[in-house]
């Protein structure tokens, strides 16, 4: 009886996953016109429990999207506008002196990192020192101040944005930092139709507000369900081969890798691919990961973990085409 109930619960949770996912999408779509692919990647990363780096020119709704997400998931949200003078303590928090009737004492004042969804806006404008302060929060989901480590709330995500055009006065994120991001999502300029929708939504009469679609517990349950999705050996192997194929120093590296890449992706890339592919499989109504899931998530997992070499720059090769070719050749 207990077994049967558990099976029912599982099936329900699997069905609930797809329903919940669809509901989140629907709620976000109320305030976010277009950018389906960006929203899709963002949700995959959030459910898989990873951080996302959103890259796009200003005004494309990156910050707005993160706000909608926090509203939809009903999670505590904080926004940090990264500037060159931003200090680590400004984001982690600091001990401040509190004077009471009983006397003075230090009390830790939590910084903006203490929220479930942290929007690190224009992350590349902060100094490496401040950027590094994010590392522990992103990886360990904890913050250490004055020797004291404090856990951050679960679920916890850092959603960072950066402007690819304006590079003056910026500090490119170091590889270690980039590797902590599950996805790097490119936010494209909206199409004519999408732009029309945005105009109607923002300066027209049409007004819809995204509502709550899930809460933290449901999100964690979705994550747990996704982790159980089986992956066939051949599918997993294709993901691993893809990651290995990005390393120019290996003997089996393809020609394009040897010619245009300076270094390859870390094992975190493989973890990112498989964890987000599991989520996508469930979102697609499948109980197993398919090659197409790997193909879908791989570019977002790899593009910020690879570095082009001088030859690629001089020949005008971009990362997207190289990753696309690798995916095409290795995921099948």
């Amino acid at each position: 009886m207990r077994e049967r109930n558990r099976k029912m619960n599982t099936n329900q949770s699997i069905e609930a996953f797809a329903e919940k996912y669809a509901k989140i999408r629907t709620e976000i779509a109320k305030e976010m016109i277009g950018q389906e692919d960006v929203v899709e990647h963002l949700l995959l990363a959030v459910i898989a429990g990873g951080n996302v780096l959103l890259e796009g020119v200003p005004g494309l709704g990156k910050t707005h999207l993160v706000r909608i997400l926090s509203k939809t998931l009903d999670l505590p949200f904080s926004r940090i506008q990264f500037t060159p003078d931003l200090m680590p303590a400004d984001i982690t928090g600091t001990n401040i002196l509190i004077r009471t009737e009983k006397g003075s004492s230090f009390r830790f004042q939590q910084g903006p990192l203490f929220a479930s969804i942290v929007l690190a806006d224009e992350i590349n404008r902060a100094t490496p020192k401040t950027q590094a302060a994010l590392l522990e929060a992103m990886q360990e989901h904890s913050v250490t101040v004055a020797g004291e480590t404090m856990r951050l709330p679960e679920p916890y995500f850092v959603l960072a944005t950066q402007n690819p055009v304006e590079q003056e006065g910026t500090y490119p994120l170091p590889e270690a930092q980039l590797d902590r991001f599950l996805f790097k999502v490119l936010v494209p300029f909206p199409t004519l139709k999408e732009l029309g929708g945005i105009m109607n939504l923002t300066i027209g009469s049409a007004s819809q507000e995204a509502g709550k679609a899930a809460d933290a517990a449901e999100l964690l349950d979705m994550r747990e369900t996704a982790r159980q999705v089986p992956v066939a050996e051949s599918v997993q192997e294709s993901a691993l081969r893809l990651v290995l194929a990005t390393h120019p120093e290996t003997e089996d590296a393809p020609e394009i890798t040897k010619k245009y890449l300076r270094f390859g992706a870390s094992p975190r890339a493989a973890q990112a691919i498989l964890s987000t592919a599991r989520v996508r499989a469930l979102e697609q109504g499948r109980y197993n990961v398919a090659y197409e899931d790997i193909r879908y998530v791989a570019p977002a997992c790899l593009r910020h973990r690879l570095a082009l070499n001088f030859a690629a720059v001089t020949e005008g090769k971009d990362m997207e085409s190289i990753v696309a070719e690798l995916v095409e050749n290795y995921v099948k």
Partner: protein
Amino acid sequence: MKGYDGMNELLRALRPVKNRIRLGRLLRGAASGLAAGMAAALILLAVTSFVPLEGRWWIAGAAAAGCVLLGAAVNALRPVDNREAARTADRCGLRERTVTALEMADRAPADGKAAEIAAAQRQDACAHLQALDVRKIRLTVPKKRLLAGAVLLALCAGTLLIPGGGDRIVSERRILQEKTSRMAEEIEEAEAAEEAGKTEKEKAELRKLTADLKRELEDSRDDVDALVAVDKAENRLEEIRQKTAGDAISELADALRDAGMDAAAQALENGNAAEMSAALSEISAEELKEAAEGLSGEAQEMAEQMAQAAQQGEMSDAQMQAMQSGNSQMSAMQQALEQMKAALGAGQGSSSQQSGESPSGSSGSGGSGNKGQSANGAGSGTTNEEENGGGGGNKSSASKGNRSPEYKEGEYETIYDPEKVNTASRDVMTEQQQLGKDSVQIETGPGKGSLEGNVPYRQVIGEYAETEAQAAESAHLTREQKEWVDEYFRRLTEE
């Protein structure tokens, strides 16, 4: 146990996919078999264009069909691996559901949520498999192999253009078999007729001769083989006749001695016509017939001939020769054998014209048939081969000469040459006898028993060898046959 059930369910759902894969393999195997079979057929047809083979087109067709069936069967019966079937199904839009389910079923059962998700995944895979239209699995027929098969088929048809004699030889063999079957029947009938008046021992020898001839005719691959067999039978028949004649002479001689006709008996045994003429002058025909009463048929026939000679007052050499060699009349078997040789010679001539070849053992030409034939039969310059010439009709029964060169080599002390006989004294007795459609000319040598025509063979052998060499050149003989003729005369010259 749950996992096992799940595996069974999955394998059941995979069955149509496996069948489809088998069908695809069958087609591929058949295509490969077709290419291989056509290659085998081509080789077979090419070889049998030169080496005759009965029913070669059927055999080639059967080889091709056999290869197709074998290729199809081997491929189709090869077990289909579960993983291969799963991958094939997944390629039809199942998005790795089947492969994953198969792996999950193989793995140790997980607990909790993982196990339930695995079960749900398997059910999902089974449901999709059952809904899968297996016709989506493409049946790819290897076009290259089919093309190769078609090209080889065209080449097989092209073997018809190879100027080989395979089919013709097979056809000729079939005709020969029909011919030899008829001949076997004829020789049996002739043998039955021949048995009349023969002793049991002679009958047994004749039967054996007939049986051997039939067997050799059946085994004959061509006219030449058949001719050789008939020739051999003729030789044996001659031996039997001579042996029978010898026995009859002894029997008659004994009877004559018993009747007090010692001189006639002695002349008969010596084979001397002059002595016999002298002895017969003192004996009446009636006394001879009386003395021969109760003897065998052959001996009585001889006594009859002696009686006729007694009435005429003398016995010629030819008559004595005929008595010595048995019977001047051709027996039924002899006639049958002659007819067979004539028939085979005609067929051989026609086939020689077609193929430009002449059968071995019958190298003599019609024009040289009479040359070197001896009246006394002791040393004929001819061989079987010479006598069995393409013309077929003319032959000396007196000279026989139908022994192999090796057999008679040492006997050629003198040789009869009609051209060497003094023209004035030349008196060649020619007897013609109508034997069905053929006529046989019998030259019995110079008249009155003259030996003028007998000359040492060394005086004529060179000329004969040259004539035979020319005849052999004009008779379209094979090189082997020509060499045989040359060898024969060379060895005669060396003697």
